[in-house]
């Protein structure tokens, strides 16, 4: 089973890396950034499977970016593997630290509390002038196991690294989602009361998902930090988190690959509408969101379980 998943992931990664050779630079970059966002969204998907949505993943995204960025700038550690790992670690640790506080919240309160926390980080970072305040700072592109690619190859190298990271993350998530604990997470989304009465702790489940999501967000943050060459508190701003939530919804929690697809689509739509309707890109983006949500229910299959009207008539009252 796990062997199968990993082979699929590996093959997929290789295929993409090969395709990358013929892709135009701007696309390479866009895909890299999409993968960064996709990883964060994947974390949200993990949370969604436990019945929660976070509007504050920006916090871990930002933590990952800043930590890896500072390590590269201040400690002159430039190896991509180390830096990405540092990012994931930072995100995971931040989440672990916060999880006891937030894991008992549900629904919109969880969403808003996480958002508030991320906005606090935003406010703080915006003030720390030592690391650029609200303007942030720039980071050099990393090295790859000793090899420092020239400007020409930098984009491709990072793209390849991103693909590998994504494949790994996707495989691990797939396994986790299908595992027993993954199933219990799904169950606690559906009926916490029952899960508790069967003897499992919804709190623990949530905490676990929060940490997973945090680590993924940290990884994504580190990746995008280097892809963009610039890091600023905006990483922790609510709009960033919001965009990723949309990606997660669009991807839906059935498939982990769909999430990355969703990320890419969103990136493309945003930049093309920005390019061709500079005066009204918000309108087109809004329309896009609507169309997707209205006509692509598959993406978010079971979010559509009706609570009111039609659908289920006997939800526990």
């Amino acid at each position, binding site marked *: 089973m796990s062997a199968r998943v990993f082979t699929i992931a590996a093959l997929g990664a290789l295929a993409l890396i090969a395709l990358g050779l013929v892709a135009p630079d701007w696309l390479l970059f866009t895909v890299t950034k999409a993968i960064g966002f996709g990883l964060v969204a994947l974390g949200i998907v993990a949370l969604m499977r436990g019945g929660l949505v976070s509007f504050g993943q920006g916090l871990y995204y930002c933590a990952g970016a800043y930590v890896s960025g500072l390590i590269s700038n201040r400690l002159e550690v430039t190896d991509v593997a180390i830096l990405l790992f540092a990012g994931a670690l930072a995100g995971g640790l931040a989440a672990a630290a916060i999880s006891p506080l937030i894991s008992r919240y549900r629904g919109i309160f969880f969403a808003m509390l996480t958002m508030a926390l991320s906005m606090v980080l935003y406010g703080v970072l915006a003030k720390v002038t030592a690391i650029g305040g609200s*303007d942030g700072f*720039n980071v050099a*592109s990393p090295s790859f196991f000793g090899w420092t690619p020239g*400007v020409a190859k930098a984009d491709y190298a990072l793209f390849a690294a991103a693909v590998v990271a994504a494949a790994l993350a996707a495989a691990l998530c797939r396994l986790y989602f299908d595992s027993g604990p993954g199933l219990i997470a799904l169950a606690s989304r559906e009926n916490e009361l029952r899960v508790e009465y069967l003897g499992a702790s919804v709190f623990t489940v949530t905490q676990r998902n929060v940490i997973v999501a945090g680590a993924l967000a940290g990884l994504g943050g580190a990746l995008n930090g280097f892809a963009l060459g610039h890091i600023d508190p*905006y990483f922790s701003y609510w709009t960033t988190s919001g965009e990723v939530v949309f990606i997660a919804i669009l991807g839906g929690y059935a498939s982990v690959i769909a999430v990355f697809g969703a990320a890419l689509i969103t990136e493309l739509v945003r930049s093309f509408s920005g390019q061709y309707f500079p005066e009204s890109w918000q309108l087109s983006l809004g329309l896009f969101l609507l169309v997707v949500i209205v006509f692509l229910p598959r993406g978010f299959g079971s979010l559509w379980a009706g609570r009111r009207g039609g659908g289920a008539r006997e939800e526990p009252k």
Partner: protein
Amino acid sequence: QETFKVGIVTFLSGQAAQSFGVPAWDGGKILVEKMNAGEAPAPYDKKGFGGLVIEPVVIDEAGGATTQVQEYRNLVQRENVDVVVGYVGSGDCLAVAPVAEELKQFTILYDCGTPRIFEDADYEYVFRTAAHATQDNVGLVRYLKATGVDIETYSGINQDYAWGHDSWADFKAAMGQIYPDATVTAELFPAFGAGQYGTEISALMQRRADVVHTSLWGGDLQAMILQALPRGLFQRSQVALSAGDHSLPPLGDNFPEGVIVGARGAYGFMAPKSELNDWWWKIYTDAYDVMPVQAPYRMAQALLGLKLAVERAMEANGGKKPNSEELAAAMKGSSWESPGGRIEMVNGNGHQAIQPIGFGRSMKNDDGHIVLGDIIRFPARCVNPPADMKGIEWIEAGFPEAECE
């Protein structure tokens, strides 16, 4: 027939659209039109850029630095523009500059103020055709002194992000030099886009000061003015707007009297009399029947400088469309006349412009309309640090090598 593709990046939505982005692009549009028609006065009278038709590609600067890096790459790698001219936001400039360098893409930052760009790094392909923010507050303090405002206490209200903090820091430093005994009574940092300033205004009036400094801009500034007006803040203290000229046209005669106003350059009311300025003023007001404020001026000086650079590069390479290297070579250290006075690319080893700056005080003219009077212009070298010095250090060192006459 061959075109020269210019990517223009400026705010078309959100807070900064009304005050900076849109007027800047309005100015750019009309100027490009005239240049393509070859109707600009000498030395800008060649059609287009040395015969190449100028083809602008505009995108919105909204969405934060990360978005802008992406859009920048798309402009360069997907749209293959020849030049990018853009960026009002300091954060955007800081983020885009290294990318431009990495992509070896000739790029002009036309507006943003942070000194960090060329103070923290050297660039080959990145130029800024407007002076950085140091001059705004140095000039402002010099103006206060020159117009004999005596100051024992002063306070500041600035937005809570880099621009606000830097402006306030510069102002305080400059005050420390020119008004060494003046003390600060209040430092307020409302959030960007707060919109509600009742509390801040009370605080400013509570902690009454001779001068109130603010670098607020756009909707925030106008809201602050509107809310402060009836509460008499402008009577209690001498308010000084380090970059507020763009609020004059919209507020019109509701703009308070006696306020010191800067424009981050010698623009609009403060612009030096010149044929070029008269022409510019005319085409702009004809097109949009409102006077041009700082943003269009800076867009204009960027495009004019670019035009000359392109044409110089074409002379050098025998009339081909120049590439980024040739453009950089042509632009480096150059200088040209602009509606706002002479632009000299002398700092940041030839990549950072310095320019004269003007200030004035709001007052009623003979037919009762609010205008700026008591205009004083300071020469570029009076308010800008020498090539080898960081802005804030220059101020703290007491403006060495400043040439004010």
